[in-house]
């Protein structure tokens, strides 16, 4: 895939989301200088468990939570730092997001945004991380039922894997870029457990077309496909807020129908290109090379409307 060269522009909107740190993503995503952090790094609430493994700790445990404004609207935000422990969910990392979701019920933001960048559960704190993911999913549904749009943004180095993939699937709207990968078992996990014949994790083209942003957008697993810039994620987040579906029986019945239809139509497909062909894409082999403009034009030409119940 094509990566943008390092931007020569000084505008934060033009910076690569993939290359940026979690803090830089937040600073650029939100209105200038509006971010306020909760339980910030100055409090040094670090993992009590990593020292057992002689591993370095981070003052923010790889999770940054707080509030800010998005085009003037009050929002709550959480961002995972994929460069610390692969953005994995540990006890404190997870508890910060649980707290933010619970706070949403009291402070009633216009939206709560989760900037995913995670390999899943932190194995050194596996039981705490796994339980935190269950708490986060429950808290997301409680926030959504209270009318708060919970929006996921996926475009970081670590992708969105493991329990992170399940948390993403609980959000009301998902925005993804080419670099974003969304899945449960990662390529290396499948290869380790089932062999390279099942999944060759070194075949990067296979990884992108099975788990990458374009495929996820085409099958309806994500709502918007965006360029790898902070500005593109910001515009898509703004557009997603008013479009977030309610969390109710009607939404989940529509999602049930959407997921059953996918099994019926594509259950025997061997590769993503087969699915794209059945969706009406004339030249599936050309999809990975399409620019965002080209991809948007392709989406507009496809015979079906979006399937967005989630």
């Amino acid at each position, binding site marked *: 895939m094509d990566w943008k060269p390092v931007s020569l522009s000084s505008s934060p909107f033009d910076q690569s989301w993939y290359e940026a740190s979690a803090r830089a993503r937040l600073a650029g995503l939100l209105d200038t200088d509006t971010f306020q952090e909760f*339980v910030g790094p100055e409090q040094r609430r670090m993992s009590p468990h990593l020292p057992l493994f002689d591993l370095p700790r981070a003052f923010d445990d790889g999770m940054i939570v707080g509030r800010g404004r998005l085009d003037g609207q009050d929002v709550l935000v959480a961002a995972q730092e994929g460069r610390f422990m692969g953005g994995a969910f540990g006890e*404190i990392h997870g508890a910060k997001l*649980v707290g933010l979701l619970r706070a949403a019920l009291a402070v009633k933001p216009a939206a709560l945004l989760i900037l995913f960048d995670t390999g899943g559960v932190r*194995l050194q704190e596996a*039981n705490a991380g796994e339980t935190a*993911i269950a708490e986060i999913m429950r808290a997301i549904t409680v926030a959504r*039922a209270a009318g708060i749009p919970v929006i996921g943004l996926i475009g970081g180095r670590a992708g969105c894997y493991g329990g992170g993939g399940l948390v993403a699937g609980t959000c009301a709207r998902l925005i993804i870029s080419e670099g974003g990968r969304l899945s449960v*078992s990662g390529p290396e996990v499948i290869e380790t457990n089932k062999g390279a014949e099942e999944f060759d994790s070194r075949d990067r083209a296979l990884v992108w077309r099975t788990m990458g942003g374009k495929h996820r957008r085409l099958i309806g697993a994500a709502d918007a496909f965006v360029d790898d810039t902070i500005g593109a994620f910001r515009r898509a987040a703004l557009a997603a807020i008013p479009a977030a579906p309610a969390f109710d029986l009607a939404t*989940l019945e529509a999602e049930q129908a959407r997921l059953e239809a996918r099994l019926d139509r594509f259950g025997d497909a061997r590769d993503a290109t087969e699915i794209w062909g059945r969706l009406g894409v004339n030249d599936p082999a050309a999809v990975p090379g399409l620019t965002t403009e080209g991809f948007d034009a392709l989406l507009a030409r496809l015979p079906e409307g979006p399937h967005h119940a989630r």
Partner: protein
Amino acid sequence: MPDKMPLDALLASLFPAGHAVTVADGLISGDGPLGGGRLAVIGIDGEAALGIEGACFLAGRVLDVVRAGGGTPILVLIDSDSQRMSRRDELLGLNEYLAHLAKALLLADAQGHPTLGLLYGHSAAGAFIATALATRVLAALPGAHPSVMDLPSVARVTKLPLKTLQDMARSTSVFAPGLDNMVQTGAVQAVLDPDKPLGLQVAALIADSPAADTRDALGHERGGRPLAHDIAAQVVREAQDRVLREAPGA
């Protein structure tokens, strides 16, 4: 470790007057009498891996219960493998199917169908999160053995010798597999007595279950997650303080 209770013995103890619960391809569904009403049952048996078809089927049964209304509680019986690990499952969006099942259970609970998980065997990773961990109350039977990842796999990832991990597992509950450790974190709220009628124990748990998520408070009390509850509460406090400070007239 005690033996795991077979599903037919479990169902007989749960429903002494008989039931309409069946198992096909490792997927459990049906219902039986409980108190004056019915108890809906879904689940996974025989350490089956949970893939896209299974998650979709189970979610459909949960939504059937919600659509019918009436407040029927839902019991989720789990003896599973992890999520099914395959290229095909991921190609078709396993994360959506597993999340959908969890959301169906969470919606059911929020709409007056109390959900209770009962772990009677194994479970791991995504299959655990999508089923038993998506219930209001999770109980287990002795002999259950949940894990996020087994120790040999943890050894591979962390590059620590297995012997070192086994020694560490004796003094900390936070990473090692096993029922006791998931009780310590607060994920498993109660361990049931297999020698007493399960129907009564299940009915009592449903009657006593808290509406709010108390797992982090339990993890604090039991020592398995010393900080999660405090951190979450502190985030809530700081968020409210900042908003109050900016409120008009403050």
